């Protein structure tokens, strides 16, 4: 996985709450057996609408998404994260994420930055007043920022320490766990024999 430290880019305001994973990528687009190519399905139901934020020139090349609360609720499909990444997104900012979505983001290297609802509103206002102006998500200092001078927005976001560390280092989760293989083997040795097996 690529290391993430800080990212600056165009941020698109997705002014909707409860954008579930079926909205991020509908089930019919989940049939690929690779990790790439899912950008076609991203927000499929809205992509043909000229008014949709990603169809506006200023936000077409957005790499940061600023979404309403409860982003990524619903299904466990990691394809939702891949679709965002395949499209070019590096980070999503929201005041609340679906649990599994946030977990999947951490594993796949998409930065899910949880901020206060007021910060979302301030960022929405900022990017609408300054379409195309960069927003910065800094994982090292755990801050989101945008603008300059009196209009400058800078606030902290929350992400758990462990995920932050893994993202900063670009570490492979499986390899970390396999370094504790002795513990797994020791645990297995004392598992009760009444536990079921599938074979």
């Amino acid at each position: 996985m690529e290391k993430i430290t800080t990212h600056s880019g165009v941020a698109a305001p997705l002014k909707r709450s409860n954008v579930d994973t079926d909205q991020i990528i509908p089930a019919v687009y989940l049939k690929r057996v690779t990790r790439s190519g899912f950008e076609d399905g991203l927000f499929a139901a809205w992509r043909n609408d000229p008014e949709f934020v990603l169809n506006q020139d200023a936000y077409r090349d957005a790499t940061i998404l600023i979404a309403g609360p409860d982003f990524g609720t619903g299904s466990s499909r990691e394809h939702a994260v891949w679709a965002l990444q395949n499209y070019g997104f590096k980070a999503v900012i929201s005041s609340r994420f679906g649990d599994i979505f946030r977990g999947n983001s951490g594993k796949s290297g998409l930065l899910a930055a949880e901020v206060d609802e007021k910060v979302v509103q301030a960022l929405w206002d900022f990017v609408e007043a300054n379409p195309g102006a960069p927003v910065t998500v800094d994982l090292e200092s755990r801050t989101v920022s945008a603008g300059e001078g009196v209009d400058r927005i800078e606030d902290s976001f929350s992400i758990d320490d462990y995920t932050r560390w893994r993202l900063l280092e670009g570490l492979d989760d499986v390899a970390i766990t396999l370094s504790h293989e002795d513990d797994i083997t020791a645990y297995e040795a004392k598992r009760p024999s009444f536990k079921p097996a599938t074979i």
Partner: protein
Amino acid sequence: MGKTMAEKIWDDHVVRSHAGEPDLLYIDLHLIHEVTSPQAFDGLRLSGRSVRRPDLTLATEDHNIPTTDLDKPIADIVSRTQVETLRRNAEEFGVRLYPMGNLDQGIVHVVGPQLGLTQPGMTVVCGDSHTSTHGAFGSIAFGIGTSEVEHVLATQSLSQAKPKMMAVEVTGALQPGTTAKDLILALIAQETTGGGQGYIVEYRGEAIEALTMEERMTVCNMSIEWGAKAGLIAPDETTFEFVKGRQHAPTGAEWDAAVQYWKSLVTDDDAHFDKVVTIDASTITPFVTWGTNPGQGVPLSASVPDPATIEDANERVAAERALEYMGLTAGTPMRDIDVDTVFIGSCTNGRISDLRRAAELIEGRKVADNTRILVVPGSVRVRLQAEEEGLDVIFKEAGAEWRGAGCSMCLGMNPDTLVPGERSASTSNRNFEGRQGKGGRTHLVSPDVAVATGVLGHLASPADLPPVPATAGV
């Protein structure tokens, strides 16, 4: 201080615990299906890893598979590729797979309990958010993403931060005509879709204890719909009775040891819950959703709510959008909403008891003109059991369609989808925009409401049905 049931199970599965890091949890059962696993197996291949415990892993085909023409290859080539990829992966990595045509094929959350693989005190994961279903047995069961599927395949463990603990106290008793589905829909409406976020939820109280195992699965299935990490119910005699004698259930002295352990998995009197919510089951009546998330629901006797009366700005905008998508006007009585399609099935309500209940209600009646009912059993064994009891004949005589087993119209990955604007009453768990097909409009309901709706052509409860004509059954 005492522990909650979930804390006991959690602690019993900690492989490694280190300050500042999530716990490494051992996984007792890993269920797999065709949609969320291909990239995980690819990851294993790329790094030259194997499946650590094929004997704790089980794969089934459910999301993509058709429910008609079961003797032919899958017509949709992309779906077929995904299913064939699973078959290849299962073969290569030595994982047991129940493919189409096998007696044990079905929706992954129906198959696990049916085989007796889901038991109390376990950790169960699957690349599917409705894994919470298995919590009905008193297990910690939750959905994971594909990276985590790969992690579990390679290590049989998962690093997880310990969630907070919540108790849902369900007081009173469900009234006749009201089901476990109505209970969970009412709870989600009360707590909203984010209410359970960050918690493992224990459903308890007399109404929960009175539920059958299949009803408990309906409740736990929808834990994820209000954001909970997992939902579980203390194992009791009802649980043991259900597990006993199943293919993978322990026997003899092993059974005794297991039951002894399972009985210890109750929340201690002095355990601490971070949050407690209460709902009175006796006040719940048949419940339906009007919007595009499972929290947007009302009693069937109510009307479509007016967004203007919603205080929270985000909720208000969401409600306005939902009404527009659903093609509904505020103030319309729910019973006045005409429905084109009724879907009875899914991992929420596609079990034998659901089908029995539905068949009993539809017997001697007819599906309304302009409405269709699709009945899709949750597994091949459920289908065969239903056919043995003659339920298929009852459905077909009423004019309903009787199908093969799978996820089907719950998510519309196979040919069973709604067309734009088509309205359904569905016993599944998600009414998201486009969930059952692009532009489709979904009302979540119980099997009872589904049948009454199919017979009358508009949202309705069994109490609205005229008596069965006297000639019925002759």
